[in-house]
């Protein structure tokens, strides 16, 4: 068990502010020196689509935050294999390098982290 933080992101970039506010706390945690891993589940994998532009009127895009993650030493991005397939995506076409995990790995990650936040 580690005190590292796992942030689970289950919403796509547009239509709500869940993704943005989940990424916000990830950056704050990293800035405070916590080791942060992100897990993209369900529609959350769409956060990693390349070629994103600004969202609905007035909504800032989240893609620039994804691009900044390595500057914050957030380099462990976990993506569920089944959810990628469901969205018709392949890991190689995403805008950043990810670690593709299976459903079994999800529960292992949850057990491994003492701190989990779910968005």
């Amino acid at each position, binding site marked *: 068990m580690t005190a590292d933080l796992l942030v689970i992101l289950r919403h796509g970039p547009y239509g709500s*502010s*869940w993704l943005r506010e989940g990424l916000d706390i990830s950056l*704050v*945690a990293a800035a*405070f020196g*916590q080791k942060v891993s992100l897990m993209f589940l369900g529609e959350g994998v769409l956060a990693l689509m390349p070629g994103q532009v600004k969202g609905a009127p007035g909504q800032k895009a989240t893609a620039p935050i994804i691009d900044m993650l390595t500057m914050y030493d957030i380099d462990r991005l976990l993506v569920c294999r089944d959810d990628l397939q469901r969205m018709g995506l392949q890991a190689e076409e995403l805008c950043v390098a990810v670690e593709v995990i299976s459903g079994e790995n999800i529960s292992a990650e949850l057990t491994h982290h003492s*701190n989990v*936040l779910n968005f």
Partner: protein
Amino acid sequence: MHYALLVMGAPYSHQAAHSALRFAQAIIRKGHHLDAVFFYHDGVHNASTLMSPPQDELHMRNTWVELHDAHGTRLEVCIAAALRRGLLDAQEAKRHAKTAHSLEAPFELTGLGQLLELQRQCDRLITFAP
């Protein structure tokens, strides 16, 4: 056991905040300690001083305040999520040249770092989200 709650649902729109309140009352009844409730995302609306539900409905803000008064539970509100949703205390209202404010003690505007600190300090952080 020391608990903290993370509330991300607006009152009267979703069950999340209402469930959080009942959970808070239940763990205190069981003899546990509720250190703080942290309001993030749409949960910040729970802190609105101007909330005016019909008299025969539960007044969410006042019920959170009762929890604070009776048990010392801190009521902490993410400042970034609050300001963009129109939840400002007197100091922030002045800073942003607003004619009114909508958040008062015992609710406190604070940063996301405080949520991470709560997660570190407490035995359990329980999330209530729609």
